[in-house]
């Protein structure tokens, strides 16, 4: 949703990154001080305006935090804070961004917790990271019936469906999603990105349930979706 906009603004503004504030904000995130992190954000907006916040502050921090999580230096709690900051920024500037002519979109894509899965945290994080990376995300929520997921993907012409499952039993339902895609002659036209704790512990399960890829962290999801989108027919 905002990817093109972000790139254009980066080109227009140059780097201009305030290292001190970035370091302080990163430190608050790492130390789980959400209130202090939010205070830094407010201070930044007052001095520099809201739109530059993402490019100069949030985006480099998300990249840094994502890398630290991949290296197992931090936990999901810190990712949660970083994603919350990004999510709040989107909510706050959504109207301006949607009406901005520079706005470019990727997607659309459909995201859901697969049928029977009721654990929203990871899905919400992935949605945040996709949105700030420029994806138009249709988030269907938790425990979404297979047919509803495919119907929505067909309706909005999504070429990637992201589904989340926390445990093995619910991950098995992704097979049914794959079967539904095949039955409707959509195989190859729609790719499945699978996520959730069970895939982190057992990556081999991705292929086993018929999904086309996974990412170990929410911050890596945009890259996965880029790759899967390109693989579609």
């Amino acid at each position, binding site marked *: 949703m905002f990817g093109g906009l972000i790139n254009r603004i980066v080109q227009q503004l140059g780097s201009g990154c305030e290292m001190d504030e970035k370091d302080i904000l990163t430190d608050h995130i790492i*130390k*789980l*001080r*959400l*209130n202090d992190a939010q205070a830094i954000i407010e201070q930044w907006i007052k001095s520099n305006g809201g739109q530059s916040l993402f490019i100069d502050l949030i985006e480099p921090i998300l990249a840094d935090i994502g890398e630290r999580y991949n290296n*197992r230096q*931090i*936990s*999901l*709690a*810190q990712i*949660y*804070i970083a994603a*919350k900051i990004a999510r709040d920024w989107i909510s706050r500037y959504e109207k301006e961004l949607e009406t901005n002519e520079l706005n470019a979109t990727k997607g659309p894509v459909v995201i859901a917790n697969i049928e*029977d899965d*009721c*654990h*929203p*945290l990871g899905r*919400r994080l992935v949605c945040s990271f996709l949105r700030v990376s420029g994806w138009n995300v249709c988030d269907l929520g*938790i*425990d979404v019936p297979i047919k509803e997921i495919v119907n929505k993907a067909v309706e909005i012409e999504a070429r990637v469906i992201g589904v989340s499952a926390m*445990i*093995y*039993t619910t991950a098995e339902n992704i097979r049914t999603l794959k079967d539904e895609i095949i039955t409707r002659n959509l195989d190859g036209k729609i790719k499945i990105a699978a996520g959730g*704790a*069970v895939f*982190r*512990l*057992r990556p081999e*399960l991705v292929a086993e349930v018929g999904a086309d890829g996974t990412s170990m962290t929410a911050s890596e999801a945009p890259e996965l979706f880029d790759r899967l989108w390109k693989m579609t027919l």
Partner: protein
Amino acid sequence: MNSAERIFATMRGEPVDRHAFAPILSLYGAKLTGCALDKYYSDSAEYVRGQDAVYETFEPDMLLGSFCLAPIGGSFGGKVKLYSKDAPNLVRPAISSPRQITEIKVPDVDRDPAITYITEGIRLLAGKYKSKVPVAGIALSPIDIAIMIMGMDGWLETVMTDENAAKRVLDITTPFFVQWLNAMFDAGAFTVFLPTVFFNPIFIPKSLAVKYALPALSEAFAQLNGPVIIHDTGAPILEFLDIFYKIPNVAGFAVNNKEPLELLREKISDNKVLACGIDCYEVKQLSPLEIYHRTIKMLDNRKYDRRFIVSSSGADINFDTPIENITAIKKAVEEYGGWTIR
């Protein structure tokens, strides 16, 4: 030795004829009796019939109270969904913000159907098997009860932004936890397994675990009338083990099979029970021969370990797991024998 003698000797670190065999077979009883899960998870007598079938089929050294915790979240006000081949799950927690905590109605441990179903099941099992097979309960720590009430998002945000609100939540969950577990001990449970969701390095940093685990769990566990075993639900726990082993009434740890057992043992010292086994997903997927060999390999690793129990890691053993896969674990345990003096 019978199962009770074997389990209690293991807890004391005394010689045993063979390692104890205690996979998580709460759900599997329904598969063996063919009982519909809505009935299995609401009728204590049906649950006990399922555990009778588990005992007849596998003769485990420990029987389990029902691993069915979501309906208790339902009793707090959450929405529960039932499944045909798995335990119920919480679709929606009771509240999403600590501001709503005053709206919570704490279930009565002695009257709430979701709780009495579990304690009555333990009472019936303990009455029937106590002299030969110990019965263990399964519950949640006060902090994981908080997650059950307000969801992981709600709880995470609360502990990170409002210490007083987190304390108010724990002021509700701690007395409930103490009453609930003591009701299980009164019913005849010799220990209670506590699957931990929050205390997991994937979710939270150690600093947060130390801040909440040590004071909150020390206070709660000190009021228990029996020991607990911390269960890692199949997620990494090694990094946090040194926090838990200092907490009163922690008798041991049920751990995943992905982290080195020798390091896990080193962290918890020699005087705690260590339970581990093949992951429940792999127990379903692998061949009986592979399961047998992996169990033997694990037993070789624990050759000198006097407090080791062969269990299964992760959650409950899957409904569709072939019987012979579980029997393969038992075969390996029986053939291997007990621990050896170094």
